[in-house]
């Protein structure tokens, strides 16, 4: 990896030899003394540290909000990083003015984060819709205002934009500048960034000559990706770069920076983004294939993926904030092996397979067979996950994702569950059910699926299925809920899946015992 990290910070090119795992937050605040970006929690839950990341896509720049507290500065290389200071214009933007008028700021600590998230939304949205604007601020917490003034402000500005949008202007940034929503330097950024990227490549070539790394040590772009909760501890595939005792691999960083934030800058790390190509989502015959470094947002924004799974966009909003979805990868979520990983639960119900291996030895494995125990995977030393694929859903397939947690958005599930269902004349022909938070691993409810296959959908069928599912799971009491609660919740979510599609067939009130549980016995139903 190149030692010098070069990027554009607001309107200025910056160079640093910082450790690549230094968080962008610390760099911005401590080295550049830009203090508008705040540290609130260092775990991606408050959004006070939000910044905008602009990535060149050849002709234009794609912008997105990220949590700078979970963002390795190495990943800023060749990018445009925008902080609150880079959003300010002379005077106030209409959103800033609205916050002022509507009481959308009180103590002011969280406010820059909201302004940044909202600006990122304006830079990236297809259309300006109030609900989407609110979703873009799901990852920002304000403890003072109750968010009411912020919501009013968003409504006012979305309305203002829709009334004044100049449809003739091709460039997004230019239109926003015309509406006083962005400073004018943004127009010069694309050229500046293209130049910077070329310079970076030149420096890289220079450095390579003297660098320790050898050509054949570099993983070929798009071929391989390894993550285990965004990290892989020193399994040294292909003698990847400098072999060291412990080598941290960082992809999205949304988990490892939470767990080991202080430690990373003392370790050798490799940023997967620096050696991998763009995420790839393809249709290969009758299957959809997704490279492991694909983020949730990549899936949300992929028109191809939206054709395949039009439900996904809505579902994904339950996975995490916009900032987290912009960074969290499918490989990370699966290899983290968390029993409640939302993406894992979703793709279990798609009966997905993954491809993992090393060098030229690759194998396919059903995702549901990958999880062997708590945080234990069927993965040999050195093996890495490259991609995930699943059969294109049948056009009549009914797909459902359910998640219950303390707070609907940006929270970790107490129990989550997904279903893929195909029926012929109300007889279940194919069903895949998954559940999270109900055992040491993300679960595929095998016996429940077997029982349901060939059955007609009815209240009694689902009730029996729920009883079987209860026998398959082994939840424990923890911070996400008691075991008793999780058992009850899974039953409820199984009903919820079917109620969505067969409300008339499942009248839960026919059974007056629906809400009576026998708490004396372990048998709930």
């Amino acid at each position, binding site marked *: 990896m190149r030692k010098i990290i070069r990027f554009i910070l607001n309107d200025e090119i910056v160079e640093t030899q910082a450790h690549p795992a230094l968080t962008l937050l610390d760099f911005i605040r401590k080295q550049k003394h830009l203090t508008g970006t705040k*540290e609130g929690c260092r775990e991606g839950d408050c959004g006070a540290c939000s910044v905008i990341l602009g990535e060149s896509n050849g002709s234009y720049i794609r912008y997105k909000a990220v949590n700078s507290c979970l963002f390795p500065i190495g990943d800023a290389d060749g990018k445009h990083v925008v902080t609150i200071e880079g959003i300010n214009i002379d005077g*106030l933007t209409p959103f800033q003015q609205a916050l002022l008028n509507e*009481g959308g700021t009180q103590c002011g600590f969280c406010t820059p984060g909201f302004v940044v998230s909202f600006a990122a939304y304006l830079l990236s949205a297809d259309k300006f819709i109030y609900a989407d604007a609110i979703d873009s601020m799901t990852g920002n917490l304000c*403890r003072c205002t109750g968010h009411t003034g912020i919501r009013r402000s968003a409504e006012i500005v979305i309305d203002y934009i829709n009334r004044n949008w100049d449809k003739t202007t091709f460039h997004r940034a230019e239109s926003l500048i015309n509406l006083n929503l962005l400073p004018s330097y943004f127009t010069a950024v694309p050229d500046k960034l293209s130049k910077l990227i070329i310079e970076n490549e030149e420096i890289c070539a220079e450095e390579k000559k003297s660098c320790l790394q050898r050509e054949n040590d570099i993983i070929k772009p798009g071929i391989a990706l390894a993550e285990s909760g965004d990290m892989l501890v020193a399994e040294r595939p292909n003698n990847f770069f400098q072999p060291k005792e412990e080598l941290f691999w960082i992809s999205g960083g949304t988990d490892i920076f939470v767990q080991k934030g202080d430690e990373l800058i003392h370790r050798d790390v490799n940023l997967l983004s620096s050696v991998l190509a763009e995420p790839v989502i393809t249709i290969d015959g009758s299957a959809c294939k997704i490279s492991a470094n694909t983020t949730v947002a990549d899936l949300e924004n992929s028109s191809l993926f939206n054709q395949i799974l039009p439900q996904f966009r809505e579902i994904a909003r339950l996975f995490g904030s916009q900032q987290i979805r912009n960074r969290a990868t499918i490989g990370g979520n699966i290899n983290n092996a968390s029993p409640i990983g939302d993406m894992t639960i979703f793709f279990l119900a798609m009966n997905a397979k993954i491809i993992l291996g090393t060098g030229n030895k690759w194998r396919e494995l059903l995702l549901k067979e990958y999880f062997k125990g708590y945080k234990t995977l069927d993965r040999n030393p050195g093996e890495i996950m490259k991609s995930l694929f699943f059969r294109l859903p049948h056009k009549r397939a009914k797909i459902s994702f359910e998640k219950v947690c303390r707070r609907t958005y940006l929270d970790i599930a107490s129990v989550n569950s997904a279903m893929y269902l195909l029926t012929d004349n109300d007889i279940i022909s194919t069903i895949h059910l998954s559940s999270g938070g109900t055992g040491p691993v993300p679960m595929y409810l095998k016996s429940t699926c077997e029982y349901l296959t060939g059955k007609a959908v009815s209240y009694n069928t689902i009730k029996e299925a729920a009883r079987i599912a209860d026998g398959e799971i082994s939840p424990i009491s923890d911070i996400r809920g008691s075991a008793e609660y999780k058992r009850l919740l899974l039953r409820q979510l199984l009903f919820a899946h079917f109620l969505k599609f067969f409300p008339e067939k499942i009248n839960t009130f026919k059974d007056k015992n629906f809400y009576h549980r026998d708490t004396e016995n372990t048998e709930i139903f």
Partner: protein
Amino acid sequence: MKNKELKNQDSIRHVRGESLFLDDFSVPEGTLYAVVFASPESHGIIRGLDITGALAHKGVKAIFTYKDIPGVNQIGGIIKDEELLAVDKVEFTGQPVALVIAESAECAREARNKIKINIEKLEAITEARDAFAKGSFITSPQIFACGDTEEAFTKCDVVIEGTAESGGQEHLYLETQAALALPAEGGNLKIISSTQNPTAIQRITADVLGISYNKIESEVLRLGGGFGGKEDQATPWAVLAGLACYHLRKPVKLVLNRHDDMYMTGKRHPYSSDYKLGFSKEGKLIAYEVSFYQNSGAAADLSTAILERSLSHCTNTYFIPNVKATGYCCKTNLPPNTAFRGFGGPQGMFVLESAIHKAAKRLGLEPHVIQSLNLLKEGDAFPYGQKTENCNAGKCWSRAVEKYNLQHIAEEVSSYNNTNKLYKKGYAVMPICFGISFTQTALNQAGALVHIYTDGSVSISTGAVEMGQGVNMKLRQVAAEIFSINADLVKSETTNTTRVANTSATAASTGADLNGKAVEQACRNLYSRLMIFASQQLSAEVSSLELKDERIYSAGKPTELTWSELITRAYWSRIDMTSHEYYAAPGVFFDRVTGKGNPFAYHVYGTAIIEALVDCLRGTYKIESVKMIHDFGSSFNNVIDKSQAEGALMQGLGWMTMEEIVYNSEGRLITNSLSAYKVPDINFTPDEIDIEFLSDSVNPQSIFNSKAIGEPPLMYGIGAYFAIRNAMQAYRPEADFDYTAPIAPERALLNLYKKAEALK
């Protein structure tokens, strides 16, 4: 007040990210960083502390323990029962034991991992009732009583008994606790910190160091949120930074990271309560007995004062002639619980609201029938003897019922519930009454120092701390109003103990009231001086002169004396253009022995109607709307006051719904991060929040007839609990759910599906 719609000009810097918080200040070169090493156990005897490994860590400059305290090792406010650094025993997980000073915070944290402590564990108490059973108390019980409950119960048609539980609440100020101590000459220190109480930091630092108060300058610019969590609990961190700075004579910065902040600091007190309520068959409340078991944590902190407010607010906004309220500060092995917006008031009110809802079920009435029947009227006495004055309880209630059409809401809810099976709607009315003043009468004092500079710009210093409540803007408005100048000419300075001394904490919603009055008086002094001077200049009677729109008017006609001309001339004529004034709220007194007095300058009233939608399949819910008539008095800044109401409401909703603090049986905080402790996000905000300012509310007790706004609206959140419960009731009409808050989705679902026999 001329311009009630004035925006908070201080917010301009906020929205641009230009407002500075403690961690944003440029620090002098050579600044050192402090990290606190705290007890990993909740109760035990320290058998050994080994700091050698940590001291040897590269970059570490010093490690301080209690042995390095030159003065007294004591930070207790009301009761001297809290050590700054543990000596030989620890009483809660997170109790400070040592302070690591290093070149960077990261380095100090690494070194902290090398400190070894050997603690002989003792049994830890985590629940108030356990502490009560074991006789573990902070102080003796407090009682508020009026009438004769025993006698009265015999005359009631119905008497019910029950228990109610309310949970703790993490402040989650977005800016964590933070302090910066700077050495000054002669062994003096300047401490800048994120505190609601700079004077406490001045006094306690001096006591800990064994030096006089005038050697400590304590300053605050602003807080990134406080909510009570920085009233007493900002102190240890500032004092620790001061201790290190005193020894090392180097600037020392101490900023708690979120994790440390969450497990080392106290929260809102959880309460467990028993009640007995007697009433007539029409629902008229006759007698009320209640016992509050407050989980105080390991040291007093503000617990006794908080308990006192629970007692004084135990009847909320209702008149009950016979009351006996008993409160116990139960000492447990949790971090000392502390002030949190509402200060025990919400906990007290929750119990009576629970009792009323239970009574309504017993009588087969809607709860609002009982509520409205018992609202306070003019001249009614509270259990502490004070009588209502300008009572707005009934006005707020009837306006809310009329404007929002309660009848219609009830019908809509009922018709929705008749046609929907798995989704149910519920509603509740929540009237409030909240007393304004520090219950410790002496604290109801404030000072202000106002300068007019020769260019006509004005500088205001008070004891008020700006923490998002807009007090700086309000003080500017006060000066601008008196002088009739643009508020842009007025600046609110930092809060600094060398400019205004012996300040009270900015708390109890009184910041703008007390400090505003002091500023008003100081400005009036200056105004009189200037008018006398102007009368000489213009050879006119003082009584014929007035300042209007930055100009002197004589007998209603503009003169040549503009504001700036007046000030320039006054300076050259040697007129003193500085005034210090002092305000002591009149008429407040309270006798702690008898539990009687006039503890509050006035009361704030309001009524909210809350509607909730419960998904009875999943046990989740949404608060759909909150509509309130709130008594703002005569607000002089509508934008600030409205957003205060919105923010307080939302914290109340969070307290009652998703915010749940969990300690394990050993007293270790489990909800110790933002991924585990959830507060309302932008999506949880009700789709409809309507706030009407009660019209014609007069309040001569406060600045410009306004009323304090910080705390009261939080208590509307209690209505959300009952709205959710009301919806759940529609799903299981026969059930009598327990009265335990918060009603997080787990509690909701388990209650919805509880076996019939398990429900009382």
